[in-house]
């Protein structure tokens, strides 16, 4: 089975999604204070592992041996990115969440 190919209407639609997403991204993220910039970076880094969705499709669609190999490799890398990214961000934010003075014995 071949992956579906997009027609013109669908291209316009994707372009619209892209543009709107960029605007939402800028609006939301520019409000993140500088003290949270590291978690923001590692958190958004985890989101960039969304490419895992594409990798899963490539690895599972039985398009042939080559794309199975490429897809599986992509799945491994993207999963490391996603899982590692979220866990590391959570570890960091856990520290930020502590109430003032709580750390003292």
């Amino acid at each position: 089975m071949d992956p579906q190919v997009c027609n013109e209407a669908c291209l316009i639609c994707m372009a619209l999604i892209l543009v709107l997403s960029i605007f939402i991204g800028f609006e939301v993220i520019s409000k993140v204070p500088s003290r949270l910039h590291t978690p923001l970076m590692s958190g958004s880094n985890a989101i960039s592992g969304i490419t895992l969705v594409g990798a899963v499709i490539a690895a599972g669609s039985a398009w042939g041996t080559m794309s199975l190999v490429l897809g599986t490799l992509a799945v491994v890398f993207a999963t490391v990115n996603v899982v590692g990214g979220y866990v590391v961000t959570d570890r960091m934010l856990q520290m930020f969440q502590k109430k003032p003075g709580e750390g003292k014995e």
Partner: protein
Amino acid sequence: MNFILIVNGTYIVAAVLFIYGLKLLTSPVTARRGNLLSAVGMFLAVSATLLNEEIIDFRWLLIGIALGSVIGALFARLVKMTQMPEMVALFNGFGGIASLLVGWGAYHVMPLAGLFVMTTVFLAVLIGGVTFSGSLIAWGKLSEVLPGRPILFRGQTLLNGALVVVILIGGSLFLSAPETGYPIFLGITLLSLVLGVMVVIPIGGADMPVVISLLNSYSGIAACAAGLAITNNILIVAGAFVGASGIILTNVMCKAMNRSLYNVLFGGFGAVTKGGAEADVEGEVKPISAQDTYYILEAASAVAFVPGYGLAVSQAQHVLKELGDLLEEKGTEVSYAIHPVAGRMPGHMNVLLAEADVPYEQLIEMEQINRRIGSIDVCVIIGANDIVNPAAREDTHSSIYGMPIIEVDRSKTVIVLKRSMAPGFAGIDNRLFYKENTRMLFGDAKESIGQIVAEFKNV
């Protein structure tokens, strides 16, 4: 049941969770919940994808997910907070290579998919490749596997320019005849990886916050391109968020150094040999002992700590917090002044100090601390150099002239904790060390602060 509808419906839910998760990141109190929501969104998106009718063979992809989860979780659990910059760089590179592979896979199965799809494949491979190799070099520099200094050679800019031109020509050749273009495609893949190496090696360690932010942005754009190539909305949406976030951070970092992005990427900052243009530094260095430092701190009513990368290197954040607590118990006003580019990634110092349980109310940003720095009795500089160098204000010939700094020289007394008199990353002498009100406490920051703490406890 209509699977396409379910899958795409779930993607919308996932996109909402990503947006809401990022929104919660705007406050330290809600940020952890935001990250969790974002992770739930990711879980839903991947789970829904498994329902996709096209997916028939689950064996390899499940093995891949299991393997990746174990590796990722282990990495994330074992890494020390001080190693966070290189960890982020490494994960980022993995995202890049995944996008490259997805693009490659898309090309492999549908070489006749038309100009638009092939263009996005080209972009996914190019940007994904640059992100991957560039992030690996950044990881190498940050973990000191590679030298942190900029690696420069004659004709570097020319070579990089030529590389870009060759990739673009290759790209247009490839796009004009994708079905026969496999060798060209492989060539482009290889050159993208080379380009990633070439653009990061000339960048020095102090400029790493900019590079990491930029590569972060690239990994998002690569995911976006991969999403366009395989017509997948959630990839486009999430990729665009990451791209935007990376660009915002890059911009913040560049502003904090008063330099353009072009200058950071091609300037080879820190390796340029300075002529005699810089004004000579006057005065002499006045060393101080830990005991005398204690007397000065003990008498102060307002103290500001100014941390830099040296704090991370010597891992002095816990003992620093201990010193801060001792001062506070005596009624001294304690604050931690954070420069936006202190350390090796955006917000680096905040993470370190949060690890040591420093309450975030005490973390003061540069503009705020500068406004009242004249009323601060003692500024203690811990492993920071260029971000407190008054040459940025005074010396028009200095390579850091115009960079916003924490103006510690305007406070009453400055104590600099430093290992030796070696210049900072910009490779220039710091006239702060020679000022009348500056004292130098030489030695490892952790040990020095430990000695001061011991003095406090002996009383």
